[in-house]
């Protein structure tokens, strides 16, 4: 996952192949033809709707381009963002790139599948391994 500070917004952020999706939009109704970046928004870090939007884009719709998190993007939610299909995050003011990268690097193994690794842990377990 690529992290950015507000000032270093990628130059592609305003081109015609970038789709800005409000967080109450249903991504399944969006026209993704020719789109290489979908920008999703967190009005507050506690508003989790964009996690479901990213999941639907990546997993349900098979979108392979960039999914970028914007808005109230805090370092402690980056792992969740990466798991639900985000590939870029523009950190909110005052958030540290270094801490964000460290938290991503320390991400733990997980129980359930997600948008990136769809299979849950139990799918790879044989009864023998688990015993």
């Amino acid at each position: 996952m690529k992290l950015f500070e507000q000032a270093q917004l990628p130059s592609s952020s305003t081109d015609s192949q970038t789709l800005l999706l409000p967080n109450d939009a249903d991504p399944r109704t969006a026209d993704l033809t020719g789109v290489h970046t979908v920008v999703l928004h967190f009005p507050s870090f506690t508003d989790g709707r964009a996690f479901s939007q990213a999941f639907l884009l990546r997993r349900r719709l098979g979108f392979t381009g960039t999914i970028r998190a914007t808005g109230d993007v805090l370092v402690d939610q980056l792992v969740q963002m990466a798991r639900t299909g985000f590939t870029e995050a523009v950190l909110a003011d005052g958030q540290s790139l270094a801490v964000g990268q460290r938290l991503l690097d320390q991400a733990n193994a997980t129980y359930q599948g997600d948008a990136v690794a769809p299979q849950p842990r139990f799918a790879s377990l044989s009864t023998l391994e688990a015993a």
Partner: protein
Amino acid sequence: MYSYTEFDRQFIRHRAAQHRDQLARHQAGTLSDEAFRPLRLQNGWYIQRYAPMLRVAVPYGEIAARQLRVLATIAREYDRPDPALLARAQATQDGIDERAGSRPGPRLKFGYGHFTTRQNVQFNWIPLDKSADVMDLLATVDMHGIQTSGNCIRNITTDERAGIAADEVADPRPFAEILRQWSTLHPEFAFLPRKFKVAIHGAREDRAAIAWHDVGLQVVRSTETVANNPHQESDEGHSGYENVGFKVLVGGGMGRTPVVASVIREFLPWDQILNYLEAVVRVYNRWGRRDNKYKARIKILVKAEGQRFVDEVEAEYEAILMQDGAPHTIPLAELQRVAASFVPPALNCDRKTADAKIAHILKAAAEDDVEFGRWLQQNVAAHKNPDLRAVTLSFKRLGQAPGDATADQLDAVAELAERFSAGEARVTHDQNLLLPWVRCDQLPELWREARRLGLAKPNIRLLTDMIACPGGDFCDLANARAIPVAAAISEAYTDLDELHDLGEIDLHISGCINSCGHHHTGHIGILGVDKDGQEWYQVTLGGSDGSTLSGAPGAGKVIGPSFAADEVVDVVTAVLDTYRTHRTSGETFITTLRRVGHDPYKAAANAVRHITARHTAQADA
């Protein structure tokens, strides 16, 4: 009990380390209060009226002796307020009684754990700067506070007699554990519109109040062949799970708007439960209201959208199956792996003579000792295994708040669990501890030990086995205190003859409308309200949690304007006296109430007003 694998242990240690890192960043000022709040909440750390509160997860209520001992250590060594803080807190609490001119409530206590209606354990005085040490300590015995708070899928609760109930269709615990793993740190569902509570049971009797949860699951066996599920393993011919599935309820909850959950699936094959819940929670995450926290629970969404909600869930489920490839379909091997942890402990009771032995013990003891007989009747329940019994230790006694256990009591209970119950206990929805594996020939010995510890009061399911939240003594949300009300009622009803004569009654007390004390489902419900900075109590009658005794689930009805704190015991007495006047032989409180209606109870309750009489007269004028 579920045996943690090295993976599970590493997961909890990692979580504890993560909390330590967050705490350090918070202390250094780089993680703001606002950003830290939901992170600490999802590890069970609240900031309350005077100090932080820690809620430790006890998944589906199962707890081992070694875990009880660590909780005892936490109570003894960490649940200790600074003396100046305690003095200040006590002075504030005393001020409430002084202003109201009422008698002083019980003193604030520390050094104990508190059993909650959601089968968890809470501590009230641990300083936040010790929180990381406590998480490390908990992790040494596979414990944590993951998702015991926050707007996420909370700790899953179940029947206190899961796996041992004589009326059980299928053991819900393996499913509860699979649900626990699936919901733990789910990346998509950590910032839902509001908290999300799941309860599951697998018996004929609902002892888990599933209709009052965001999702309620009942394990059922279909009488028909399950042929509509393309993902069911074809080779599971004799697994015992062929016709097992869930009745799925959605949209129950208490709070300001009590709602009984609706059935949205009469039968869902067991292996589809994670795929189906993913659909339910995704629709909720996308559609649930976020503009008003009092309208953010899924119950409001289900009520507002009705069939449209159900259709959307079914469409999402279909897409998970057909487009996503149903990755969370549970393989039979996984269910069997988890279920293997829940094999009943080997017990060496002589089955041949068991029946005669049981009969002999019960007969002899009942004749010898009325109290032992009552204990057998109220605190000892039947078991799947006729050699065994489920024994409830009563944490409802004078001098301690409902569900409170001191450090020494937690240690003592660990000892009892080891000696009499294969090292296992259960935290119950009613805020007691249950020993699930007691040999019938050890009942007299257990009774003597429990009585010595003050935990053998034969009041289970009776009036004084009440549910009460910590209320305004600790909780920042509370409008009024619950502990002094519970204490006053317990003091007024100490006579066991009278308690047994009154029979089984659900009395539930909440300190505010958030309803942690489940007042909506009490046959008698007491709700703390705040008016002009003073404590008042609204009384409801006729609520039901959905048990056989209580009937179809439903919220109680208010009997009149709020009462003053000093009137509450008189109201309860008036209501109980009315029951005694109207009951027929053998009729329970709730049955009499339903038969004669609320009017005589209302009249009796309102007649005891003395402090609020003038207030009521003014309101009526």
